């Protein structure tokens, strides 16, 4: 009996997380388009609902009812698999993100996370790297020039920033002494306990790595519209296409922002000024600020060339993150 109830609770919780993420991602598209509009001095979505509030729903319906085109020469299995391979790893990171401490409502203990395993951060890192297969499969399976070049470029960008990202995460791990995201948050006490004060180098490296992993502008060579039409998803249409930007630009950026908030800004911690739900409010506020920072970078900066990107990764970011490990080790030893 107990195992059945566990499964039911897990399924319901997972459904809430996944569908909630979908809804959030849908409205993040609206926020991004509004933001982009105002950056470029135009109103953005305006006509569907009040100031475009229903635009995400209209977009979802449109994407779902577009013809499911499969070009002639593609590898059909990989072509469909690529959409899934981009989407599933991006949302899997959500499973290890804790949104707060367990709370008690009507006598039930509710845990605002799917699972708290002791290698949470490594899993997040692993899923982040797996998501590259979606892009490469899409580029390969399309059997067309622009997707191919886009996929290969993304691979070049990712193999550089993956190493830097891994080493940059070592700093906060050393401070917290754990891979579990929940324990990392608990290790950050108070305003000056947040790891951002001790790990500014790691934070800079991780900012760059997140921009590169989610393909946002200084690093969006894989879909550079001016050169590659739309990059790796040129041949895609309908929902197969819809999953790519959803996974990469919205779900990916959201969950990686959440990881950055957990590592450096104390996760859900903050003054209890919003009552019982203040941990959630603080967490979402911080993640939202991170997300808006990425949007700000995306819509104001020009793009690097692909060779510049890989050289920044290997010649600047990797030494910086190694230096950060060294400094952190010495500080911990001196402080005892």
């Amino acid at each position, binding site marked *: 009996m107990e195992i059945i109830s566990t499964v039911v609770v897990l399924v319901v919780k997972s459904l809430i997380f996944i569908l909630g993420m979908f809804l959030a991602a849908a409205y993040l598209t609206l926020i991004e388009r509004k933001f982009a509009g105002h950056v470029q001095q135009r109103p953005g979505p305006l006509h569907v609902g009040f100031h475009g509030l229903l635009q995400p729903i209209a977009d979802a319906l449109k994407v779902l009812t577009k013809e499911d085109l499969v070009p002639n020469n593609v590898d059909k299995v990989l072509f469909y698999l690529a959409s899934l391979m981009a989407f599933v790893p991006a949302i899997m990171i959500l499973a290890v993100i804790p949104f707060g401490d367990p709370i008690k409502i009507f006598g039930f203990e509710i845990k605002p996370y799917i*699972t708290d395993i002791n290698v949470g951060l490594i899993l997040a890192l692993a899923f982040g790297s797996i998501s590259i297969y979606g892009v490469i499969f899409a580029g390969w399976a399309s059997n067309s020039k622009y997707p191919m070049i886009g996929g290969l470029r993304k691979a070049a960008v990712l193999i550089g920033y*993956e190493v830097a990202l891994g*080493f940059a995460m070592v700093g906060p791990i050393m401070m917290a002494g754990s891979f579990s995201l929940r324990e990392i948050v608990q290790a950050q006490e108070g305003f000056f306990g947040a790891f951002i004060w001790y790990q500014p180098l790691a934070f800079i490296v991780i900012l760059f790595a997140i921009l590169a992993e989610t393909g946002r502008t200084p690093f969006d060579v894989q879909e550079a519209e001016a050169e590659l039409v739309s990059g790796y998803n040129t041949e895609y249409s309908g929902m197969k296409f819809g999953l790519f930007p959803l996974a990469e630009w919205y779900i990916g950026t959201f969950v990686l922002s959440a990881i950055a908030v957990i590592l450096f800004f104390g996760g859900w911690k903050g003054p209890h000024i919003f009552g019982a739900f203040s941990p959630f409010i603080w967490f979402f506020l911080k993640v939202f600020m991170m997300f808006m920072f990425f949007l700000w970078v995306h819509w104001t900066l020009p793009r690097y060339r692909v*060779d510049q990107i890989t050289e920044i990764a290997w010649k600047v970011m990797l030494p910086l993150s190694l230096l950060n490990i060294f400094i952190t080790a010495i500080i911990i030893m001196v402080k005892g």
Partner: protein
Amino acid sequence: METGYFGLAVFFILAVVIGAALLILNRLLAPRTPEPYEGYPYECGVPIYDKTTWTTIDQKYYLLGLLLVLFDLESAFVFPWAVIFKEVAQVASGFIFTEMFIFLLILILGYIYAWKKGALKWQ
């Protein structure tokens, strides 16, 4: 109760199911209007020149790919060290520090060698 990896597996299955359901829903809902050129690969409106891209492509970052394997393996060794560092540093700080940095130093030497040889350049 603690769900551990079981929770992860359930989440994974649901994520795959929902992703696949969206693709299938698209296929069921969408109209199908065959057009002679709808399966044509994108090529700026001119007749397609290369029939396929599944040929040999010059990859500019082959050496970087090799270095990735090296450094990712290295980070796999650094992670466990990082987790216990704070604990062990209280009893034997010099030992755990020098041990890891001898390991890192060897790899940093290799990294400097690769840099000097021009392996980090986009070729």
